[in-house]
Each structure stands twice: as structure tokens, then as C-alpha cells.
């Protein structure tokens, strides 16, 4: 399986500077790919385009040569700030339930305690919330996971925990994974390949 982005160009509004210019990238489910770049190089925009969170761009995103299907998107994105990706009026079980029925053993794998399911997002800290946001994205229909600075705001121990759980499930399900980070050491450990997105956006 392969997720490809061809000739992607993007700017926020017609007047502003172009953030991405003719970017080509391809992710497959056999290797874990790392994406590395300076701040402002358009990494986050590229991630959003790949996962369908941005719709107005030039170029095309394909899954095995086909268009991304409507409805559930097999490409799911994890943001840096988990508190922004949850409706503050939902309890945690509703947050997970929006995507799928998560089996108990997987909750345990991700270090989620049952009692947390009845809490509001405001009652949990960033580390715990991020476990939920990752697990929500891991619907059985998900084929590719894009982790955009997923653990940047977390401490090193939580970072290990989350990545261990994610890597396990990615291998089990034969999923594709794109890791975006500014931490070279982290990428060296996790990724099979690392690519560099520089200022002029040639991958």
C-alpha cells in the first residue's frame, strides 16, 4: 500500500507567501518514514493535506493510485496539542466512541485507566489526552497514521510509552506511519528512512 502526494503547492490565502511548492512525497506501509525540517518549512501543512484537513491546494494525494475515498479517511492525523482535538463537552468515552469501540486490551496497552473514560478532557493532562487521540485515530479502517510532532509537548517517558504502543499496532496491522519531529535522535531510533523538507520544499 502506498500513499503518494504529487506536485503539492499550498498557500494560506491568495495574497500570502507560498508555503509548499511542488512537493512530492510517498509513504508505504513497509517502512516507517520520518519527516524533518525547520520551523516554517510547511511540515504541518503537508501533514494536513495528506490527511485531508486542508482541501484547497494544488496537486493530488492518492492512495494506491486511487482518490482518497469520501467518508472515513484511511489517513488519520495526530496533532501536537491533544487538548484542541477534543470537544470540551464530551467525556473521554464519547471521544473514543466517535471513532470505534476500543477493546479493553488495547486501552491497557496504551496505559489508559478505565476510570479516565468518565472524565472530561479538562480533567486530564496532555500525556493522557494524547493517548486517547492516538487511539481514536487507530480505527480498524485506518491505513496510514501521520504523527505531527505527536510527543513534542510530552515528557520523555510518556513519549516512549506512546511510541511503543503505536509501533506495536502499526506492525500488527501492517499500517503506514509518517513521523514528523524536530528531534533527530527520536527519528533515528524509530524511522527506517528520514527525509528533509527544506525551505524551498524539495523533498
Amino acid at each position, binding site marked *: 500500500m502506498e500513499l503518494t502526494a504529487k506536485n503539492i503547492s499550498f498557500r*494560506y*490565502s491568495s*495574497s*500570502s*507567501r507560498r508555503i509548499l511548492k511542488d512537493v512530492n512525497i510517498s509513504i508505504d506501509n513497509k517502512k516507517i518514514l520520518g519527516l524533518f525540517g525547520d520551523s516554517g518549512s510547511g511540515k504541518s501543512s503537508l501533514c494536513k493535506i495528506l490527511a485531508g484537513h486542508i482541501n484547497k491546494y494544488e496537486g493530488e494525494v492518492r492512495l494506491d493510485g486511487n482518490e482518497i475515498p469520501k467518508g472515513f479517511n484511511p489517513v488519520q492525523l495526530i496533532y501536537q496539542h491533544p487538548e484542541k482535538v477534543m470537544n470540551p463537552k464530551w467525556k473521554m468515552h464519547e471521544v473514543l466512541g466517535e471513532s470505534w469501540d476500543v477493546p479493553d486490551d488495547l486501552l491497557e496497552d496504551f496505559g489508559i485507566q478505565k476510570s479516565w473514560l468518565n472524565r472530561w478532557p479538562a480533567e486530564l493532562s496532555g500525556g493522557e489526552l494524547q493517548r486517547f487521540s492516538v487511539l481514536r485515530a487507530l480505527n480498524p479502517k485506518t491505513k496510514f497514521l501521520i504523527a505531527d510532532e505527536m510527543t513534542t509537548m510530552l515528557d520523555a517517558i510518556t513519549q516512549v510509552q506512546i511510541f511503543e504502543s503505536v509501533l506495536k499496532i502499526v506492525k500488527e496491522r501492517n499500517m503506514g506511519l509518517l513521523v514528523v519531529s524536530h528531534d533527530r535522535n527520536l527519528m533515528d531510533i524509530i524511522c527506517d528512512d528520514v527525509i528533509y523538507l527544506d525551505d524551498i520544499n524539495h523533498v
Partner: protein
Amino acid sequence: MIDKKKIAKFLGYKIVRFAILLVVVILLSFILIDMSPINPVNAYISNMVVGPEKIAKLEAYWGVNQPITVKLMNWLGNILTGDFGTSLIYRTPVLQVISEKFTASLILMLSSWVISGVLGFILGVLAGFKRDTWVDKAVKVYCYILQSAPTFWIALLVVMIFSIWLGWFPVSGGVPIGALSNTVSFWDWLRHLILPAFTLSILGVASIALYTRDKLIEVMSTDYFLFAQARGESGWTLIKRHGIRNILLPAITLQFLSFSELFGGTVLVEQVFMYPGIGQAAVSAGLRSDVPLLLGIVIFSAIFVYVGNLIADVLYNFVDPRIREGEESG
């Protein structure tokens, strides 16, 4: 620097928008009045004795039995040539009535608008700065009470206290009815203006003071205010440099957005003080079925309110540097 070309473009857009808006307002008010049981012919003849052939002639003139579209077309056509018709109760052209009455009201509205704006802002800053002290509490209680008080009731109280009980001011009337405006002395005129203006001012203070207070408290808890404090700024200079600078523009904008409320307040206050302004004319026109005058007043009051909103828009879009220069630096 304020970009002149951008303003011109903005104003052009706003004027086109306003033209469309005005047409809709005219249609809306025309339809509303046409729906009503008002009969302009009856209003015109009111207590005169008129023969049936004269009535028929008048009905033809007003188009009583014609479909609404024809009446509307006639009237719109006349308006485009600058003819708003003749007021039935004043028996003079509508435009003349409106220009006279609006001038009288504008003086009343603008003076109270300025006074309430300045006073309200000062009270709001004081209350926010001295938050949770007795100053703040006093301002808050005053504002809450005034905000809940019916305008015309406060006007009645003012009449009761200052005109009847203390006898400082005449009980009613902008100018003695029937007197020509140029024969009335300035002092006479001022004496009739003070109470209504005072009433409108003390009422108008409430919303602007509460808004300013809340806004200042909001600013005082922002990161940049905190940082200014951390850098040793304090007391009044701190409020002046980082508080007032940041709330003055929104407060002025709010004050310009209040033209509609101001107009409503003026109508009520003029009624109580029998001040011969646009509000009183509107009420008479409504009560005595003076359709041409009522329609004319609706149009001009809409222009008045729109101008207020437009100024607020311009302030918001061209004075704040974030919005003014935001486009270029993206």
C-alpha cells in the same frame, strides 16, 4: 499610515451595500404600513367636513384602491426625484419637516452621546482599575439599575424632580409651540434642551461604563499586561500605557454602534419632555396615520443608524494596526 485607496474601495463597497439595504428597508416599511388598517385619506380629512367627490379625488391621489405595487412604484418614483410627499399633520413637505425636526434632535442626541461616552468611559476605567473596591461596586450598582430602568420612567422622574419639585426647568416643550425658531432666545432653547439631554446622558452611561470595565479587566489579565507588570510598570501609567490604549478603540466603536438605541431613547425622552424633535414627529405620524412622514422618518433614521455602523466599521478596519497592516505581512 492609513491607506486611502483601501478606504475608498471599502467605502464604495459599503455605499453599494447601503443602497441595496435602503431599498429593502423602504420595501419592508412600505409593506408593513400597507398591511395596517391606516387610511391616509381619513387621516388627511380628520375633522374637516368634506364632500364625497373631494374624498374620491383624495382617494385617487393616494391610490387607496390600487394594488400595492402601483402605489409603491408611484411613491418610489417620487422619492427618486426628491419628493417625499407632503406631511398630513404638518401640511408641509416631508423633507422640510424632517430637516427641521432632525436638526433639533441631532443636537439633543449628539450632546448626550458625547457626555455619556466620555463619562461612561471614565467611570468604566475607574471601576475596572479599582476592581472590587467600593468605587467599582458603586459604578456597577448604578449601571445595573440604570440599565434595567425604562427610559421614559427615568424621564418622568427627572421631570418630577427638576421641573415640578425644584422648579428649575420648564415642564415641557423644546420651544414654545407656534413660535418661530428665530424668535426664541438661545437661553430659552438651552433651558429646554438641558433636561432631555441630561436624561439621555445618565442612561447612556450604563452600557459604555460596564463594557469599558469588563474590557479593562480582561486586558488586565492578558499576558502582555502581566509582562508589562513583570517589567516594573505599575499603577496609573501601566493602565494608561497598556490598558486604555487597548480599550479606547473598542469603546468608541461600541459608542458608534449605539445609534439605534440612542434614537429609540430620544423618541421616548422627546415624548415625555414634549421636545419637538424627530422622535415626537415619528410618534405623531404613527398615531395620526401620517404615512408619508412616517416613511420619510424611517428612511432617514435608517441612514442615521447606518452612518454610525459605518464609522464603527471604518474605525475597526483602518485604525487597529493588526487589521490595518495585517494583509501585507500576512
